[in-house]
C-alpha cells in the first residue's frame, strides 16, 4: 500500500495555516479557564511545530508505527508537550484532547478538498482518525509517565527535606533519621551529613535513629561507613536513639558497634558532645527578690 498517507501529508502542507488557525481557536475554547498555565505564545509555537512535524512524518512513512524513525521528531515534540502539561498540573485527558481537537480542522480540510469524491473522502477521514487516535493515546501515556516521574521527584525532595542536619551547638551537628533507611535515601542522607560536617567544621555529629523502624545489617553497614567517613573528616559520631529491642537485635545480628559511641537518647548524646567540647549546662541561680 504505497503512499497511503500522501494525500494527508500534502493536505497538511497546503492547508497548514488554515488548520492551525482553527485548531488554536478550539484549544483556546478548551483551555479558557487555564490561560494562566500555558502562555498563548507557547501554545501557538508548540501547535505550529507539531503540525509541521506531523506533515513531515506523514510524508516520510508509509506505516502507522510511532516507534519507527520517521516519527521520531514528532514523538519528541509530543513528549515535550505532554511533560510540560503534566508538570503544570494538566490532567491526561486535557492533554489527549489537545490532539483529538485537531480532528475537526483536519476533517474539514479533507472535506474541502475531496467533496466530490465521497469514497476517497471516507477513506482519508479514516486514515486521519486512525493516526490522530494513535497520537492521542501516545500523548496520554507520556503524560501519565510524566506525572509519575514528577511525583517520584517530589517524594525524593520530601525525603531530602525530612532529614535535616541540625546544628545543635557550635561544632555539634545532629542528624535525626526518620523512616526506612534503605537504598537511595541512605546515600542521600549520609552524603548530606558529611557535606555539613565539612562546611560547618563540626567536630561531633550525633546520628539519631529513634525514627528508624528496622536496623538490619545493611542499615548498620551504612551507619558504620558514615561514622568512618566522618572520622576521616575530623568529626566523631555518636549514634543515639537505639531502643532496647533494636540493641538486642543488633547483638543477635552480630554487628560490632563497639567502635562507635552509642547512647539511648539524643539528650544523652548531646550531654556527651558538650562534655567533649568542655562545655556544661548549668542552672541559673536566680537572685531572690529584694525584700520590701
Amino acid at each position: 500500500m504505497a503512499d497511503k498517507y500522501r494525500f494527508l501529508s500534502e493536505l497538511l502542507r497546503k492547508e497548514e495555516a488554515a488548520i492551525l488557525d482553527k485548531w488554536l481557536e478550539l484549544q483556546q475554547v478548551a483551555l479558557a479557564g487555564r490561560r494562566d498555565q500555558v502562555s498563548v505564545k507557547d501554545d501557538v509555537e508548540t501547535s505550529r511545530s507539531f503540525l509541521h512535524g506531523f506533515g513531515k512524518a506523514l510524508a516520510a512513512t508509509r506505516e502507522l508505527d510511532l516507534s519507527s524513525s520517521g516519527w521520531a521528531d514528532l514523538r519528541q515534540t509530543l513528549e515535550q508537550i505532554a511533560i510540560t502539561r503534566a508538570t503544570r498540573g494538566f490532567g491526561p485527558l486535557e492533554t489527549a484532547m489537545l490532539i483529538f481537537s485537531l480532528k475537526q480542522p483536519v476533517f474539514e480540510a479533507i472535506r474541502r478538498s475531496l467533496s466530490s469524491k465521497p469514497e476517497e473522502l471516507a477513506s482519508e477521514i479514516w486514515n486521519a482518525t486512525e493516526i490522530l487516535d494513535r497520537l492521542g493515546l501516545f500523548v496520554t501515556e507520556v503524560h501519565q509517565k510524566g506525572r509519575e516521574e514528577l511525583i517520584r521527584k517530589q517524594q525524593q525532595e520530601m525525603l531530602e527535606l525530612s532529614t535535616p542536619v541540625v546544628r545543635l551547638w557550635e561544632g555539634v551537628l545532629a542528624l535525626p533519621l526518620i523512616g526506612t533507611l534503605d537504598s537511595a535515601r541512605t546515600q542521600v542522607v549520609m552524603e548530606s551529613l558529611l557535606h555539613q560536617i565539612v562546611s560547618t567544621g563540626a567536630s561531633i555529629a550525633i546520628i539519631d535513629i529513634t525514627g528508624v523502624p528496622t536496623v538490619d545489617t545493611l542499615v548498620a553497614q551504612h551507619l558504620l561507613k558514615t561514622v568512618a567517613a566522618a572520622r576521616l573528616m575530623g568529626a566523631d559520631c555518636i549514634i543515639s536513639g537505639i531502643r532496647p529491642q533494636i540493641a538486642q537485635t543488633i547483638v543477635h545480628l552480630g554487628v560490632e558497634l563497639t567502635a562507635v559511641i552509642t547512647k539511648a537518647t539524643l539528650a544523652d548524646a548531646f550531654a556527651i558532645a558538650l562534655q567533649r567540647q568542655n562545655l556544661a549546662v548549668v542552672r541559673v541561680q536566680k537572685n531572690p527578690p529584694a525584700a520590701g
Partner: protein
Amino acid sequence: MATLRSEIAGIVTSEDIVRVRHMVRDAAVRLSFSLVDQTKIVTAASELARNTLEYGGGGTVRIDELADHGRLGLQLIFEDRGPGIADLNQAMQDGFTSGSGLGLGLGGAKRLCNEFEIQSKPGEGTRVRVARWK
C-alpha cells in the same frame, strides 16, 4: 499444627523488601508478639528478603501464622530460582559475603529465630525457612 493465615508476596524490587517487612510486622502484631520478638522476626525477614532479591535475583516469601498446641508462631519461607549457593557452610559463616555486605545476614537471621533451615542447589535456587515462636 494449624495454619491460621498464610500470605505470599513477591520480592522483585527493593520496595518489596519494605513491604515484606510491613507484612511480617503486621503478622507478628496479629499474633501479639512482644516488641522484641516483632523486631527480631522483622529484621530476619529484612535480611532474607534482601538476599532473595540481591543474590537470588528475586523470588517469593510465604508468611504463615501458625498455632501449635496453643503456641503461636510465625513462619517465613523465602524461595528463589537464582544461582543457588555452592558452599552452604561458607555462606553461613559470619563475615562471609560474596557481595559487599557485612556477611551477617544468614547467621543473624538464624540467631534471631527459633528455627532455621536452608536448602540450596547450585543452578536451581535457594529456599530458607525460619520460624519464631512466642
